């Protein structure tokens, strides 16, 4: 099996890369969305999401076990044949484009709203994509080093926001815990689930793992880390804002603006936004890497590097094409988005796994 990516990564690098790949944007708007349905139980919703995350890690891992050192694009052709496989991969790649476009769009909307209202959208987007394109072009090993560097910073950032806000947090806000049954937290879990199933993307990185056996551990570790981060973010918003969380667009950011220690440590939002963006940079780079590798494999190229920038260009166009404005994007996240994600990240992989297992058990080798 020709490996386009020559690099090899360790399980720690894999875990941290996955953590940022999914987690960076998760803390941006998800608390506001969970709050609408789950209200005081919103901190429980990520737990339901994590279960789905574990499912997707498992799907990706099992598929890789069956087809060692292959990615999604490669084994889908082997499972359902060339034509169907290429079709499925195409849908998946289109999905990737959509995901990257959405992520970039989220960041861009946030930056423009909070900091740079007059800057044209294209400038913000192009800036981010240029940086990530250079990173992707440098190869996987470089990318994961960024992740190892920034992931702890990101996690610490959230922990610090929580700590600095401790005096302002009202723990009574979690009551009545499950006071209206378990349904509210489940209803509020739709968004967290939509995020956690993105963990299937580990399918693109597993082939490059140095020690194949540690893939499952790395993936599960990342899910756990993300769960902790998400719960912390949700708790922070709940304990600080209570019902108000549902009315804020970027609750964690608004929370960070609230920090004021002893009259001199305040207005820290610039630091917060910077660290956030660092996490986002890794996230966007990772997804762009998945897109690039996937496309290269789909086209059976020998080297993915030449198409990095063209794809970057395409990504910029997609970031604009994804939605005409913020409200529409949000509406999509709440309705059709999760459906499409579920299809690409859970249903299709599960179907492929199912078929693959049947083929294997009927001894057709392959």
């Amino acid at each position: 099996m020709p490996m386009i990516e020559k690099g090899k990564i360790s399980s720690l690098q894999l875990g941290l890369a996955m953590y940022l790949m999914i987690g960076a944007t998760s803390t941006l708007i998800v608390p506001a969305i969970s709050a609408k349905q789950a209200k005081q139980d919103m901190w429980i919703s990520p737990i339901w999401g994590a279960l789905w995350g574990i499912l997707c890690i498992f799907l990706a891992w099992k598929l890789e076990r069956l087809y060692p050192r292959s990615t999604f694009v490669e084994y889908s052709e082997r499972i359902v044949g060339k034509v169907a496989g290429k079709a499925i991969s195409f849908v998946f790649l289109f999905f990737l484009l959509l995901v990257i476009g959405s992520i970039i769009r989220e960041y861009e909307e946030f930056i423009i709203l909070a900091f740079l209202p007059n800057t044209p959208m294209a400038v913000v987007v192009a800036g981010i994509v240029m940086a990530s394109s250079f990173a992707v072009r440098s190869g996987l090993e470089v990318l994961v080093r960024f992740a190892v560097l920034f992931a702890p910073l990101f996690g610490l950032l959230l922990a610090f926001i929580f700590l600095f806000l401790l005096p302002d947090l009202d723990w009574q806000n979690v009551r009545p815990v499950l006071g209206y049954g378990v349904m509210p937290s489940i209803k509020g879990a739709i968004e967290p689930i939509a995020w956690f199933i993105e963990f299937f993307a580990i399918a693109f990185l597993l082939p490059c793992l140095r020690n194949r056996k540690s893939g499952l551990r790395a993936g599960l570790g990342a899910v756990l880390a993300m769960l902790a981060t998400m719960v912390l973010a949700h708790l922070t918003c709940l304990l600080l804002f209570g019902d108000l969380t549902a009315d804020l667009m970027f609750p964690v950011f608004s929370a960070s603006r609230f920090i004021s220690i002893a009259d001199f440590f305040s207005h820290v939002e610039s630091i917060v936004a910077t660290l956030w963006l660092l996490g986002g940079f890794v996230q966007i780079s990772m997804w762009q890497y998945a897109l690039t590798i996937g496309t290269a494999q789909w086209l059976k190229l020998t080297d993915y590097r030449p198409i990095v920038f063209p794809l970057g260009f395409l990504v910029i166009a997609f970031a604009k094409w994804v939605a005409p404005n913020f409200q529409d994007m949000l509406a999509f996240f709440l309705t059709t988005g999760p459906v499409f994600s579920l299809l690409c990240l859970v249903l299709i992989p599960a179907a492929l796994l199912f078929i693959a297992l049947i083929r294997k058990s009927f001894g057709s080798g392959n």
Partner: protein
Amino acid sequence: MNGSARRSGMGLVLALLVASSIGLTGCWDRQEVNDLALVMGAGLDLSEDNKLELSVQIFVAKQAGDQQGSAGGGSGMSSGTAKEQTTVYTATGDTIADAATKLQELLPRKVFWGHGEVFVFGEQLAKHGITDQTDFLMRHPGPRLGAFVFVSKGKAKDVMARPSQLERNISEGLREMAKSQTGLRVNVKELMQMLKSDAGAEALPLVSINKRNPESNQSPFISGTAVLKDGKMVGQIDEYTTRGIMWLRNSVKESVITFKPAGSNGFVSAHLNRSKVRLIPSIRGDEWSIRVQISSEANLIQNESGLDPLEPRQANRIQEGLNDEVSDRIESALAEAQRKMDADIFGFSDTFRRSYPKQWERVKKNWSEKFPQVRVDVSSDVRLKRPGFSGK
């Protein structure tokens, strides 16, 4: 071939770097500090034709002693003492945002809300309703949710124009007073939470201009509490009863209580701190009640009662007197807010919702009928810890 390709590659990279440095500096949104008009505090009033009058206190980052002029559709007032470095500008519009735009027309610098620490609603506007205007505070990215909110007796504009006793300007003065908690302390976030909650009532500190003491230069101070229902002011509560309200809301940091112990002729003053108040709800059948449990520590600071604090039984009488006084204040707060105004400014609705969600859902719509019927039992456990430096 290779060499020249290399060089042109380098040239391209260089060109890219130069080009990106233009884009990366965020040219579109550059804001120099001395191009900004920093809003320290804002006053909101109802103008004669029912429009919104916005008065902002702008911090001027230059030498004190400069006087600002006024122009056009608004007016500027300058508090002209040497230590003042702020000026108040006023503009009128249909909404805060509209008024802010008109304000911007008056100013050579861009209005910057990021330092706004204080928002004051004028009495007329408060009676008219503040809900609409608070939307601006939450939606616009500029104002901070941690800024403090007040209602002023009379026009907010007058309050903003007054000098501050010891701080640089009145916005800072009000902020410090809110923090020291001589009265209620409410920030924008808490106000929005109160407006959103099912309690249907809000309480904000009331600011008046100090006309009693001529030397104070008429500087504003917190004189009581404004009570609002659904964002409209329905009444006010004096300083004495405000204490009771603060006890019930568990927002007393420290306080001084002066009282006459039973059977003595002199006053005792005690300083309380480490105050903690718990509201314990209970529902028995149709009867809803709340037990208010107060615990605190007290040190004597003045004793004219003739009772000896070192003697256990007499110390007990002092302690009892103390507890009675605290209970009295709470009673008076309840009499005003619960029975007279039917305004749940204590968060009883949330207290019941958290412990009895199912029963709460049934009563939610009729809270204004149920609330006055809630029986409140006060048990005050303030302990006299220290008699002070003197042992008499």
